[in-house]
């Protein structure tokens, strides 16, 4: 069984072919539903949504900031390995970067779908407004995606070259292309890669924290007409919940891919480290949200009070209590409270999934409640729940992201060939 080339055998992807078929079938169904809904959205225009002039932003905007956050969070986890040199995390470095890129693609799909004139999506690169956070954001997103791709390249090039050299078939040819011609596998070239990886990471950290995700928070916070968003703490909470969701996503992907693709046993120490990080981020997120709520309520500003009462007791309060507090905070905190649970892979998968879903509710509770109350007494109240088209297009766009991720995970050496022990 042990041939001369066994250490270069490169066969990522599903170990169980039935699982592969089932997974692609699920994605196919989601893509069909999403495709049909997208066709409805394109032909009927914005009438296919439940948005109104009182509540102009809805599910698509919530998912857009959710995926921007997921991306920024996953990226920051990757920098723990390649900038701060935490040894054990090297194993998940590429996975986190790749997930960050896919998340940004999905985020941009959402914001594109949300435009009243989808055909004018490139206009922000033609005309600008210096005082508009959104104008800055679209540029930051492009720069950020470029940094992510650069990082993934330098992180993966050495292994790509090895696969191109020793492997065969589609994967080898694709890997050869992706090396961009730098196919040397010397230690010197590897050191160069690491240097540049670190440089790109150092550039990427402020970009991700302050411009990409902090900036997305600023986009809301500058809106003085909506006192609920108009707070200095708001962008900070944005970043913390982003890091929280990113950590949960990386933990989830690590366990699933190690088990289903690599067929190896999960590194319990690494898992515990990730779950501890998760716990810290949950506590910071809870604390900052509580501070924000306290300041808002103490201001006795009628708009703040009413918005918070909508969140806590309104018709959508179930999303706050069940999803945001329950799935996002309480359940995962309970899951990571015992050492033996923290070292149990499937429990951590459930905890990670719970956070990833809970943060969706966090994003909805950011976007929708301040648009329910009219900006002036005498104007109509809003009421919003996404339409079937909005849900189905969202499912479709998420399926696009899952598909891209799965294809990438099946073809690319996202797990270091030497298992990250360098």
């Amino acid at each position, binding site marked *: 069984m042990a041939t001369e080339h066994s250490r270069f055998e490169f066969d990522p992807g599903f170990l169980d072919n039935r699982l592969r078929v089932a997974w692609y079938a699920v994605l196919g169904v989601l893509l069909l539903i999403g495709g049909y809904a997208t066709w409805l959205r394109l032909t009927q*225009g*914005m*009438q296919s949504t439940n*948005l*109104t*002039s*009182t509540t*102009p*932003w809805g599910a698509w905007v919530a998912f857009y900031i959710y995926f921007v956050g997921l991306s920024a969070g996953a990226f920051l986890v990757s920098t723990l390995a390649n900038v701060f040199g935490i040894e054990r995390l090297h194993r998940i470095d590429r996975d986190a970067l790749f997930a960050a890129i896919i998340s940004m693609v999905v985020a941009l799909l959402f914001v594109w779908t*949300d*435009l*009243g*004139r989808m055909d*004018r*999506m490139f*206009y*922000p690169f*033609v*005309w*600008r*407004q210096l*005082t*508009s*956070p*959104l*104008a800055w954001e*679209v540029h930051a997103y492009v720069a950020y995606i470029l940094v992510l791709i650069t990082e993934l390249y330098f992180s993966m090039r050495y292994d790509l070259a090895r696969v191109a050299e020793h492997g065969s078939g589609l994967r080898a040819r694709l890997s050869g292309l992706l090396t961009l011609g730098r196919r040397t596998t010397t230690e010197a070239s590897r050191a160069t890669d690491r240097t540049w990886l670190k440089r790109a990471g150092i550039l990427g950290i402020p970009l991700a924290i302050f411009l990409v995700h902090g900036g997305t928070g600023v*986009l809301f916070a*500058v*809106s*003085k*007409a*909506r006192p609920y968003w108009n707070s200095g703490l708001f962008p900070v909470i944005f970043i913390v919940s982003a890091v929280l969701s990113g950590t949960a996503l990386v933990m989830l992907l690590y366990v699933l891919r190690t088990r289903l693709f690599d067929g190896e046993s999960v590194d319990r120490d690494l898992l515990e480290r990730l779950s501890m990080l998760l716990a810290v981020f949950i506590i910071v997120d809870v604390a900052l949200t509580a501070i924000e709520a306290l300041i808002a309520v103490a201001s006795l500003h009628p708009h703040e009070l009413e918005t918070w009462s909508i969140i806590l007791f309104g018709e959508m309060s179930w999303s706050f209590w069940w999803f945001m507090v329950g799935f996002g905070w309480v359940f995962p905190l309970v899951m990571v409270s015992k050492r033996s649970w923290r070292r149990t892979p499937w429990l951590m998968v459930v905890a990670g999934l719970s956070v990833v879903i809970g943060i969706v509710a966090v994003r909805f509770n950011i976007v929708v409640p301040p*648009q329910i109350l*009219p*900006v*002036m*007494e*005498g*104007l109509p109240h809003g009421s919003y729940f996404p339409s079937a088209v909005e849900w189905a297009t969202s499912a479709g766009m998420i399926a696009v992201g899952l598909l891209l991720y799965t294809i990438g995970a099946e073809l690319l050496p996202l797990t270091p060939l030497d298992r990250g022990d360098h």
Partner: protein
Amino acid sequence: MSRSGENGHAPGVPDVGRPAFDEMVDDERTDPREELAKTDHDTDLGLAMAEDAKRVSRGELSAEEYWERYDELAEREFGDAYRETPNPSIESPDQTIDAETAGSLGCSVGSMDSVACDLQDRDAADAAGESSGDATDGDERWGMVIDLQKCVGCDSCTVACKAENRTPPGVSYNVVMEEEHGEFPNVTRTNVPRPCMQCENPPCVQVCPVSATYKMDNGVVNIDYDRCIGCRYCMIACPYGARYFDFGENYDDEVEEAGEITSPEYGVDRGTREDGESPIGNVRKCSFCTHRLERGEEPACVETCVGDARNMGDLDDPDSEVSEMADSSRAFQLKESEGTDPNVYYLE
């Protein structure tokens, strides 16, 4: 089954006969001789010209003969006034007399059309030359003052606005916010009409990522429908809820061919309303009826207001009515603490 009665006229209509109508007209008609006697000019000439003009219209006399007969007489009677007044029968698109006769006439001024054009040119030159104190000299800062004591809450402004700007369902540039306070029997009701405030510091302009909305020199906040990408950030930023998204809905069920006519908002005529074409998919709002202001008219809401509660004018002109009202102790702006400095003032 004829619906007409025995005498051939419609049932229910009294049969007075045609001659009776003609008599009534003659009774009402002023006596030409009496009327012409009031002027300084020759009564007989006037009567003769009028009688022959009737013959021209009956076809008994040609227009050329008419003018050959009266050109000299009229010139002698009216002098310069005749020579300087354009003759409607010549050089107009439907010139009614032949060129030879036209050339021989004493009134040397061109046609009505050319005279009208000259007058417009002179006006334009005046306006461009120096900034006179004229009502529409192009350097105004348009402002509106709404007297809440005069507003009766009839919503005519809202209706006039929809009719003028042809806004689709769900889009209403002007609304009247109604607030009731107190408990019966001590209740008060305040009606606050809300157009776009055309803020001096507009938050909507600040956030637009493509600069599709911007402040014009005349104080009006413009939206360029050819640039707006429909992201709706401006709607989030507006503290007055004055912006509306055009979801592409129509009044086709209520009115036939509802989209045939659109308003030339911001002076741009976009033809009929069509799916997928701007302003569908764009954000829209009140423009102070820029297209009306440009031709010297007041916005539709101001013109229609039954209580004369709405006033339009130049806030840069300290002597204008709106400036004086905006300076009065009754004047206030909505949400003054926002720092937006609206160009719409209210009188409490």
